């Protein structure tokens, strides 16, 4: 997996505030999710990658060249900034063609590419309306259009779906997945976990300016499985369920809920518990089962707590 984007011991600070602290990682083709709470350093990471900021220490290389100070990279890189900021008096088409002109395309090719990009984000029918009149979802999509209009190999997307309602969010998630499948390198930053999980498996967890965890989401979740889990189950016959569960080797504790329907089990090896729970669950009529330690959010919170 050739490295499209490379961070070598890169740090960045503003005054005394450390935004990115000694980060080393490489990102190749496909979609990579950049995950972290607000202020964790995601935006700084993307600004370093897109050469808008120079690293205070270390090196940031994009397509083999130092990201800062190499404007020619933007022939092959598309950036979708986070801010909801536009030249409001331009129409969607003027906005994209205007920026394509700064990418060196001539008149005809500009118009052609702009219309393709607008079609890609389902904005073709609104191409002649002023961006000032666009809805929040449409503004986010025209921003994507300018990022992918010049068919870049690399796409850096800063919170592309924040503040969007479900209809638009799903459309954007599908678009990112389609882009990832065409072999481009797509880096998507977000603080909404299930969106990133829907777009990709490859995740980079970032917190307080440091890389916390890296790799396939499931790998990270398996890493989770070595730790005790508490699992809550509601069953028609909780006693029968309890009898079956108690026999399992790694169960640490087992308690009954107040109303009697609920059973809470704590196990040292969650994999084992879930593995051979199926028969007991079926016979005892389990209708609800959840564990606070089970979703990506908990992975995140768990790793952040450290």
């Amino acid at each position, binding site marked *: 997996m050739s490295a499209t984007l490379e961070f070598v011991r890169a740090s960045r600070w*503003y005054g005394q505030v450390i935004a990115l602290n000694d980060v080393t990682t490489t990102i190749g083709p496909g979609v990579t999710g950049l995950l972290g709470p*607000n202020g964790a350093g995601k*935006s700084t990471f993307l*600004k370093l990658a*897109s050469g*808008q*900021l*120079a690293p205070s220490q270390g090196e940031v290389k994009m397509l083999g060249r130092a990201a800062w100070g190499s*404007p*020619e*990279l*933007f*022939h*092959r*890189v*598309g*950036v979708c*900034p*986070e*801010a909801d*900021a*536009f*030249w409001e*008096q*331009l129409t969607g088409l*003027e906005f994209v063609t*205007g*920026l394509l*002109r*700064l*990418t*060196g*395309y*001539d008149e005809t090719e500009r118009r052609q590419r702009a219309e393709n990009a607008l079609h890609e984000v389902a904005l073709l029918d609104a191409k002649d309306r002023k961006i000032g009149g666009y809805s929040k979802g449409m503004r986010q999509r025209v921003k994507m259009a*300018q990022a992918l209009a010049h068919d870049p190999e690399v796409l850096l997307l800063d919170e592309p779906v924040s503040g969007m309602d479900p209809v638009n969010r799903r459309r954007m998630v599908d678009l990112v997945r389609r882009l990832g499948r065409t072999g481009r390198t797509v880096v998507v930053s977000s603080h909404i976990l299930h969106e990133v999980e829907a777009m990709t498996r490859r995740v980079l967890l970032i917190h307080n300016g440091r890389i916390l965890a890296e790799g396939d989401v499931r790998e990270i979740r398996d890493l989770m499985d070595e730790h005790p889990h508490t699992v809550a189950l509601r069953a028609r016959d909780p006693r029968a369920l309890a009898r079956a569960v108690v026999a399992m080797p790694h169960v640490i504790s087992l308690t009954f809920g107040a109303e009697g329907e609920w059973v809470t089990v704590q196990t040292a090896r969650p994999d084992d518990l879930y593995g051979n729970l199926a028969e007991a669950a079926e016979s005892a009529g389990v209708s609800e089962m959840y564990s606070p330690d089970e979703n990506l959010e908990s992975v995140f919170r768990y790793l952040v707590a450290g």
Partner: protein
Amino acid sequence: MATRDPERPVPFAPAARGVFDLALEGMVWSGRTVVMAGLLALPVVLAIVYRLVLARYPMVRLSAIELYGWFIVMYYLRFALPLMALFYATALIADEVEGKTLTYLLTRPIRRESILAGKFGAYVVTTLTLALPAVVLAFFTLMTVRGGANLGGAVPDLLRDLGVVALALFAYGAVFTLLGVFLKRPVIPGLLFIFVWELFLPSFPGYIPRVTLTAYLRSLVRHRPAQEGVSEIFAQVLPTALCLEVLVGAVVVGLAASAWIFSTREYVMDQ
């Protein structure tokens, strides 16, 4: 257009031209241009009033040519042009930063110098298309008073004045571009520069006027309107060659410094 070479940024001229068109679009059609047009048209209105009233109220203390000279020196050179330069030039980059739209330009394969060049070009075109017609209109409104006998003779004056107006817009434009790129809040310093530095220092004795642009601009123009009080005594006229040298120098240095600062500065547009 040459085919796109992904290994090198887009050449300077076409890139600047692209930024120029984008900037011009935003600059010309904004509400502020209407305000600026009004500011420049004021002397034309006064000229028209002067012509109409002249018939019934002939005892005027300024002849048409003197009034025109007064407009050029007192109104345009010392007030309207610097203010318009401050208005547009400080915002060339500041508007994009404040509006957070600079990112779109910084993430294009173009050198930052071409962004500044494109923006400054748009500034020059916008201000010239507003200022030059106003001066010409004022000129003809006044010069055609009483049969316009001396019109032919005065035309070279007009051409010279138009040249000085353009030079003033370039010079003040370069200075305020630098101010806009260098300071976070350039307006108050800019206003102090126009209404204190450029207003009072040119009338000082000795070498002091040489640190102002007004002294040079005023020396290039042949009009010598009667100024009140102390400034009458010390008004100096500097040699034309020196004035041109200094003004062109100010433009070059101002733009070069702005380009250098703009290229090396990082723009952190926090959320």
